[in-house]
C-alpha cells in the first residue's frame, strides 16, 4: 500500500491467449486448490464425504463474503482493517435489540444497517477528510470493538430466537447451506459489478491512477465512499451469519478476522497496491483457505499451526510468479 511499486516489465509481444490462460493467477490457484484437495482426500478417509465438504464451507463463507467487497476496496487503493470490529459492534447491537424483544426480521435489519453505518463512517473519514484509510480503520477498529466492550464488558448476549438460527445453521437444499448459497449469489453479483459494469471499470481506473481518474471525470471520492459502504454492508451481513451460527455475542467475536479477509483477497491475486485483481481469484482463494484449514483440522492439526500454512501459502503464492518472471527475464536477456 505505502510501498513504491516495482518498475513494470513490459514484454515485446503479448502472450498467446492459451499461454495467458495457463499462466494466469486463477490457473495457479486452481492448481493449488486441486493439489490440496487431492492431498486431503488421501490424508484423511473422512474428507470425501458430502457432509464433511458441506461443513467445510462454514469456516470460510462469512470471511469470504467480506472479502468480495474488500477486493473492490483494495483494487481502488484503499483498505479496511475495521471489518472484524464492525462484526462485533453489529452483533452487540443485535444482542441489545434481542433483549428489548425484537423479532428475527428486525435483528437482521439492525445487523445489516449497523454494518452499513460503520462503513459509511469509515468512508466519510477517508473521502471527506482525505485521511489514509489504513490508519483511519485502525482507529475505527478500536472504536467499534471498544463500544462493544463498553456495552458488554465481560458479559455475553444469549438466547436469540430459534427462527434466527436459520441464517448461520440452516440448509437451503440437502447439503447446500444458506451461508454457501448467499456467498455464491454475492460472488456472482460482485463479479458482475466489477467485471461487467462501468462502475467496475472506474474502480480499476482509480486504483491504477487516482489523479488521472479524477481528470477523466471519475468521481473518485464518491466511488470510494460507496466501496467503504459496501464493505461495511458485507461485514454487517457476516455479523448476522456469525451471530446466528454461534447463537451468542461476546465483544471478542470475530477477533482477527480482518487479517484473514485481507489474506484471502491478496491470495486471490488482488494487488495490495491497487489497480488489479479479479473476483474469480478471490472466490478460489476463499475455497483454498477453507480446504487448507478444514483438511488440516481433520488431521487434528491445531488451528495455530494451520495459520503457519496460511501464512506460508500467502508468501509463496505471491513470491512464485515474481521469481518465475525474474528467471524467465534472465533467460531472455
Amino acid at each position, binding site marked *: *500500500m*505505502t*510501498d*513504491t511499486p*516495482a518498475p513494470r516489465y513490459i514484454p515485446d509481444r503479448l502472450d498467446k491467449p492459451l499461454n495467458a490462460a495457463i499462466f494466469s493467477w486463477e490457473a495457479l490457484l486452481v492448481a493449488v486448490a486441486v493439489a490440496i484437495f487431492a492431498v486431503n482426500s488421501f490424508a484423511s478417509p473422512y474428507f470425501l464425504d458430502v457432509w464433511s465438504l458441506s461443513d467445510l464451507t462454514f469456516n470460510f463463507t462469512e470471511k469470504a463474503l467480506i472479502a468480495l467487497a474488500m477486493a473492490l476496496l483494495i483494487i481502488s487503493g484503499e483498505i479496511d*482493517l475495521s471489518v472484524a470490529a464492525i462484526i462485533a459492534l453489529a452483533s452487540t447491537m443485535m444482542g441489545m435489540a434481542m433483549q428489548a424483544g425484537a423479532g428475527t426480521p428486525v435483528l437482521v435489519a439492525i445487523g445489516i444497517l449497523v454494518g452499513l453505518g460503520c462503513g459509511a463512517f469509515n468512508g466519510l*473519514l477517508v473521502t471527506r*477528510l*482525505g*485521511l*489514509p484509510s*489504513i*490508519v*483511519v480503520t*485502525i*482507529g*475505527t*477498529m*478500536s*472504536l*467499534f*470493538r*471498544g*463500544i462493544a*466492550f*463498553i456495552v*458488554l*464488558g*465481560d458479559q455475553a448476549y444469549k438466547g436469540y430466537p430459534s427462527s434466527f438460527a436459520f441464517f448461520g445453521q440452516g440448509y437451503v437444499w440437502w447439503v447446500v447451506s444458506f451461508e454457501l448459497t448467499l456467498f455464491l449469489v454475492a460472488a456472482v453479483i460482485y463479479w458482475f459489478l466489477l467485471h461487467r459494469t462501468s462502475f467496475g471499470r472506474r474502480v480499476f481506473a482509480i486504483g491504477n491512477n487516482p*489523479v488521472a481518474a*479524477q*481528470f477523466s471525470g471519475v*468521481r*473518485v*471520492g464518491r466511488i470510494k465512499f460507496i466501496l467503504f459502504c459496501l464493505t461495511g454492508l458485507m461485514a454487517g451481513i457476516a455479523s448476522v451469519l456469525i451471530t446466528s451460527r454461534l447463537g451468542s455475542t461476546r*465483544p471478542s467475536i470475530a*477477533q*482477527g478476522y480482518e*487479517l484473514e479477509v*485481507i*489474506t484471502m483477497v*491478496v491470495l486471490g491475486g488482488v494487488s*495490495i*497496491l491497487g489497480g488489479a485483481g479479479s473476483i474469480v481469484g478471490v472466490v478460489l482463494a476463499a475455497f483454498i483457505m477453507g480446504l487448507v484449514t478444514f483438511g488440516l483440522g481433520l488431521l487434528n492439526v*491445531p488451528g*495455530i*499451526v*494451520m*495459520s*503457519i500454512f*496460511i*501464512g*506460508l501459502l*500467502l*508468501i509463496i503464492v*505471491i*513470491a512464485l510468479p*515474481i*521469481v518465475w518472471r525474474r528467471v524467465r527475464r534472465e533467460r531472455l536477456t
Partner: protein
Amino acid sequence: MKVFPRYREVWLLAAIVVLIGLISMRFPGFAAFGNLRQLFNDTSILMILALGQMVVILTRSIDLSMASNLCFTGMVVAMLNAAHPAIPIPLLIVIALLVGLVLGAINGFLVWRLNIPSIVVTLGTLTIYRGATFVISGGAWVNADQMSPDFIGLQRAAFLGIPVLSWIAILVIALFFLLMTRTALGRSIYAIGVNPTASVYAGIDVGRTKFIVFCISGMAAGLCGYLWISRYVIASVEVANGYELNIIAACVIGGISIAGGIGSVGGAVLGALFLGIISNALPVINISPFWQMAISGSAIILAVVLNARGERRQGRIILKKAEAA
C-alpha cells in the same frame, strides 16, 4: 499551517501535560513523581516497539509482524531460561536481539529481494511467527516458577532510583535519536520516505535500506520479547496477540505519517506515552477498563485528523471544486 507540523511533538506534549493536569485535579497523587516514573516504566516496552516501527513506517513500509516476533523471541528466551537457568541474563538478551534480528531479516529479505509489498510479507509472517511459537513450545506455557529469579528480577532492579526497564528504554531512545539525527542511515531513511525515486538518484540503495529497517524493527521486537516475558512472567502463544496494531497506533498518535518521510523519535515516544497514560489513568478516575479500547480508538482518529492538516499535498488546487463534489 506551516508552523503546525514542525511543532507537532510540542502539541502532543502539551496535550499530554493537559491530560495529566486534568486527571491530577481530581486525583492529586497522579502527577506525583513516583506515579509518573511508574507510568514511564509501564510504557517502556511500547516505546521501544514504536521506535522500531517508526523507522519502518518512515520508509513507506509497515511491519505487522512485530508482536508475533516478540511472542516467538520471548518464548525462545523463556524456554532457554527454564531449561538452562545457568545462562547469564545479558547473554539471553543478546540471544533475544539475535533471534529478533533473524526474524526481521526474513521480512526485510522478502521485501528487498522479491519486491513483495511489506504489508503482504508481514501479514504472512505475522501468522507464521506466532504459529512457530506454538510449534517450538508444543502449546505449553512457561510459568513464573520455571523462570530463574535473575530472569524476572533484572528489569525490576532499581538503578539510581529508576528501574532497569526504564533505563533500557532511555538507552534505546538515545540510540534511535543518534541514528535518526546523526547518521547517514538516518538521513537515507527519511529520504526514501519523502521520495524513493530521488533517493535512488542520490545514490541511496533503497532496497538495502529497507532490509536494514526491518532488521532494526526485528531487533526492537526481539528485545521486547525478553522484556515482556520477564515483566508479565508468563510465556505463551497468546502473548501480545493483536498488539501490532497498538504499536502502529502509538506511531500514528505520535505524528508519524503512514505515507512515509514524516516523524521523529520524540513523536514515537510521546505517542506511546499518550496511550500509556490512557490505560493507566482509567482505573484511577474510576472508569471501567472496558472503555480503554474505544478511547484509544477515538484518540487515533483525532490524531490522524489533526496530523493530516499539515500533510495535505500541495498542487491540486485546480481540482479543488471537483474534489469537493
